[in-house]
């Protein structure tokens, strides 16, 4: 008897309240406990044109909030990559055959085409863990761990950060550090820098695995300027030491007059038809960066503008300008166009090719990523809230790099060719975030 009565109490109470207040049926209550879990996941597609790199990446960041603003965060990333990248050799008017990275076979480059190294497939898994907690009334600290593994590469890292608020929380000063220990273990072994690309099966110029250690420091300040404007500025210093070369990148050895790659007779079992050398980068690199960002609220729209300047002791200087503008659409959707400009100057040891017969430089690389180029990213993101008030978004971007070889480096027939591998990539990312 009482069970049946209990079930109808809510309804009877609603009716009695209605009579008492006389205001008709009220809006249904909407109360939720602040979430303790936050799941943020995305699926990314990155694809370069001309049969170059394609990547699918699944990324997830999971946070668990505890009382008193303590947060534990785990991150997991799984990348699947396929495709080919420019090997660093120059295109020729004739066919070229080059020994592959593992040294166990060759691949052929059609005449007139930019030599891309052999198609590869790789999977990378990365994990991060981070603990955040307040320290006293106005400070916060973060401790983190990171690790990643690919077929031939291992990374392990630790990081920490401390931040303190001042001036009624209008100013925050922070300092952080990160240390990494990475290991490069390519199949076939790491090649001796500036040694020749040898015939198939000849691994005489290969060593074992090589290490790289990285130390980063960042100090920063963020400042609330007005009710609608917040800015931040960071200075960071980074030092890498150890094996910094890319074991797969090569340079063409060319004739000092024609600029064409010097020919060679490959061994009967297979080998390169031209002369190539493995690249060699210094075993130390120090970088300084200055980064500044502003977020400005204008009548519901938000402008996010940032600038970063980087300079290092490889003589690379870069400037990055990043602009985002968020336009709300109705109450629960937004549209956000994005524009990014990037420019860098080449490394001091960047060269298009090595001249045969001349004395070898100490360091040399024709990796386009150390070259002189401008890049532009243009895209837009569209976000909306699902029925359950969770966030979804999709963004599409185009990334384009176009570079040039310093004039003094172009020799003979190289002048007529498109020497610098331009990059055109499509980025599509879909994200879903829910809290509970």
């Amino acid at each position: 008897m009482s069970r049946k009565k209990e079930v109808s109490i809510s309804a009877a109470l609603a009716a009695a309240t209605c009579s008492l207040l006389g205001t008709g049926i009220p809006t249904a209550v909407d109360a939720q406990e602040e979430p303790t879990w936050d799941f943020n996941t995305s699926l990314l597609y990155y694809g370069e044109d001309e049969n170059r790199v394609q990547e699918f990446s699944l990324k997830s960041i999971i946070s668990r909030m505890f009382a008193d603003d303590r947060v534990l965060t785990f991150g997991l990333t799984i990348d699947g990559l396929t495709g080919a990248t420019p090997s660093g050799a120059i295109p020729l008017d004739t066919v070229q055959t080059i020994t592959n990275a593992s040294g166990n076979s060759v691949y052929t480059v059609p005449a007139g085409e930019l030599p891309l190294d052999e198609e590869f497939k790789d999977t990378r898994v990365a994990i991060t863990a981070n603990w955040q907690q307040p320290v006293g009334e106005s400070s916060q600290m973060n401790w983190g761990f990171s690790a990643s593994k690919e077929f031939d590469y291992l990374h392990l890292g630790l990081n920490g950060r401390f931040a303190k608020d001042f001036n009624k929380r209008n100013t925050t000063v922070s300092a952080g550090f990160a240390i990494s220990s990475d290991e490069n273990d390519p199949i076939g072994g790491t090649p001796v820098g500036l040694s020749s690309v040898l015939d198939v099966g000849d691994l005489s110029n290969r060593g074992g695995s090589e290490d790289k250690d990285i130390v980063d420091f960042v100090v920063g300040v963020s400042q609330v300027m007005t009710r609608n404007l917040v800015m931040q500025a960071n200075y960071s210093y980074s030092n890498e030491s150890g094996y910094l070369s890319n074991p797969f990148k090569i340079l063409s050895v060319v004739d000092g007059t024609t600029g064409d790659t010097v020919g060679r007779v490959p061994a009967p079992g297979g080998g390169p038809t031209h002369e190539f050398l493995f690249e060699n980068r210094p075993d130390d690199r120090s970088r300084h960066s200055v980064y500044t960002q502003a977020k400005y609220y204008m009548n519901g729209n938000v402008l996010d503008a940032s600038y970063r300047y980087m300079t290092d002791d490889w003589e690379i200087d870069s400037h990055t300008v990043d602009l985002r503008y968020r336009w709300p659409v109705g109450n629960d959707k937004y549209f956000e166009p994005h524009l990014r400009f990037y420019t860098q100057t080449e490394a001091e040891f960047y060269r298009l090719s090595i001249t045969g017969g001349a004395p070898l430089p100490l360091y040399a690389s024709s990796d386009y990523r150390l070259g002189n180029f401008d890049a532009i990213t243009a895209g837009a993101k569209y976000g909306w809230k699902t029925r359950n008030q969770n966030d979804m978004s999709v963004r599409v971007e185009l990334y384009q790099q176009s570079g040039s070889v310093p004039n003094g480096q172009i020799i003979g027939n190289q002048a007529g060719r498109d020497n610098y591998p331009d990059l055109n990539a499509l980025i599509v990312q879909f994200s879903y975030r829910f809290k509970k």
Partner: protein
Amino acid sequence: MRTFLAMGILLVCSGCTSMGIEPWERDVLAKDEMQLTTDALEAATDDHIYFSKEASSGGRGFGGGGCGCN
């Protein structure tokens, strides 16, 4: 270049102690879209893409670690 940077940093710092708003004026800054990093996933993804395709990296802070892609 270096003096310009130093001046820039000093300029930001010198204004710090006198600038700001009262705690009850923080409504706009509390919005998700006004956080310095609004979308951590997108920021981490971009950091990784540009780390593998360019010679510069980071700036905002540091992310989850390296890879063999550079």
